[in-house]
């Protein structure tokens, strides 16, 4: 059998970009070709290498970009409007406020987490306070926004500034505050941040709160790459009934073939290690049986059958 055309399809298979018929042809071939199954694994590892070098723009860059855009737009003539409306005074002020609103800025990196938390709007800096205006030169206030001005009796001017500030925190993943921020970041809208955070947390999956976050991710994250990372973090914990339950959920509902195949691998691995879990794993037996009854993919069917054999379970759903 000619493997070359099938090999060419493997990355598209992993990206879920094959048509039903193409996927069917590739998976049928995979069932009978150990070399191509190995090639699929290598392909997955190759793509995983690139997962590790994804970069998320820093919060500082995003903030600077927003501010710079707001300033630039303020100089723009009003665009041609579909309906003519009289511009209201202060709209750009409101726009500037809006683009510098607090945002979810959890950006961990490296072995310690460096987390920037959003803006502290309308922050009053009392004169004379350490780090306040009294300690700043005029150059330091370049990015500040004047809230109010007031002449003082001595002829000086009292200025109240709104400032946007980032805050960084450093610490180890075991620190409660860091841990809490990281767990929150696993639900950030940014794919890159979630991937980076989940990758960090996989090293601490012996803690139940981290495992819970990873289980939430494999069940709910919309990005298959992030889900796969979380799944890898759970591979040493297949002895945990909750983890097996999460894997069973993935098997039941995840549309990504790589996720389903890996979940089967992990469930089988848990069965290989122990033979005394049958009562607790009744649900998993059911999931495998159900999957076997509806799964069209021969390779997946083969994996399910093997798992059921290991559990001494029937292939049929009664």
């Amino acid at each position: 059998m000619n493997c070359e055309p099938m090999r060419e399809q493997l990355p598209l298979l992993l990206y879920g970009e094959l048509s039903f018929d193409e996927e069917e042809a590739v998976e049928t071939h995979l069932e009978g070709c150990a070399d191509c199954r190995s090639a699929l694994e290598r392909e997955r590892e190759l793509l995983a290498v690139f997962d590790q070098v994804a970069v998320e723009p820093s919060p500082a860059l995003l903030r600077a970009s927003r501010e710079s855009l707001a300033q630039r737009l303020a100089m723009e003539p009003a665009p041609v409007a579909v309906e003519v409306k009289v511009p209201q005074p202060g709209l750009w002020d409101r726009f500037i406020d809006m683009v510098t609103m607090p945002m979810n800025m959890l950006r961990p990196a490296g072995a310690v987490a460096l987390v920037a938390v959003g803006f502290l709007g309308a922050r009053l800096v009392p004169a004379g306070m350490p780090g306040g205006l009294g300690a700043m030169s005029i150059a330091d206030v370049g990015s500040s926004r004047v809230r109010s001005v007031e002449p003082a009796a001595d002829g000086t001017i009292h200025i109240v500034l709104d400032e946007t500030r980032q805050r960084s925190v450093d610490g180890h993943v075991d620190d409660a505050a860091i841990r809490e921020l990281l767990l929150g970041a696993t639900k950030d809208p940014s794919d890159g941040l979630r991937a980076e955070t989940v990758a960090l947390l996989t090293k601490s999956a012996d803690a139940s709160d981290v495992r819970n976050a990873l289980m939430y991710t494999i069940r709910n994250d919309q990005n298959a790459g992030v889900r796969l990372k979380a799944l890898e973090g759970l591979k040493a914990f297949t002895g945990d009934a909750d983890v097996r339950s999460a894997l069973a959920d993935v098997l039941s509902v995840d549309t990504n073939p790589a996720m389903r195949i890996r979940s089967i691998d992990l469930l089988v691995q848990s069965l290989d290690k122990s033979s005394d879990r049958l009562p607790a794993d009744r649900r998993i037996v059911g999931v495998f049986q159900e999957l076997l009854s509806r799964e069209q993919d021969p390779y997946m069917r083969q994996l399910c059958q093997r798992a059921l054999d290991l559990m001494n379970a029937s292939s049929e759903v009664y």
Partner: protein
Amino acid sequence: MAPNTGLNMDETALIKAAQAGNQDAFGQLVRAYDQSVLRLAMNLLRSPEDAQDVYQEAFLRVYRNLHNFRFDCSFHTWLYRIVTNLCLDQMRRRKVRKEEPTVIPTSDGILDRVETVADQRADGDPQRNLYSGQIRKKIKEVLGGLTPRERMVFEMRHYQGLRLRNIGEILGTTEEAAKNCLFRANQKMRAALGEFV
């Protein structure tokens, strides 16, 4: 993943409001998409200055031309078409200048994009350091060796999670052409990194 819109109103209504001159609505549109725009530009150009330029120019163009937007495609596709054109121009200029920066400032300082591989893989083991150093070199080679279009398709498919059909639409080509581009990128990556995985 769909961008986090956080919108107070339906996107169509928001676009129509922005077209009618409602600048709050325009601000909401910017916030709905600007993180993913900046991420795409940053990953492709790997220079914060260039990424910020693309970000600003893209949203300025949206601002100036929003009244011409007729909902023939999604707003996301239209915006990404602008962004990818700007990035492609920049990457082509770079190819001519033979520049390929890899240094990126992040929230915790300057980060070499490919150094992160070493950080995550090395664990202080000399042998693994050597191994990850080799991978690092190869990743640099392979990213530098992709054409701007191959980079674009790979970035949008792999990192932004866009479907090839959507990528084709953004780049003004067919799904098949985008697929071929991804295939060529993958071949080059496999040729460069195959021995390491």
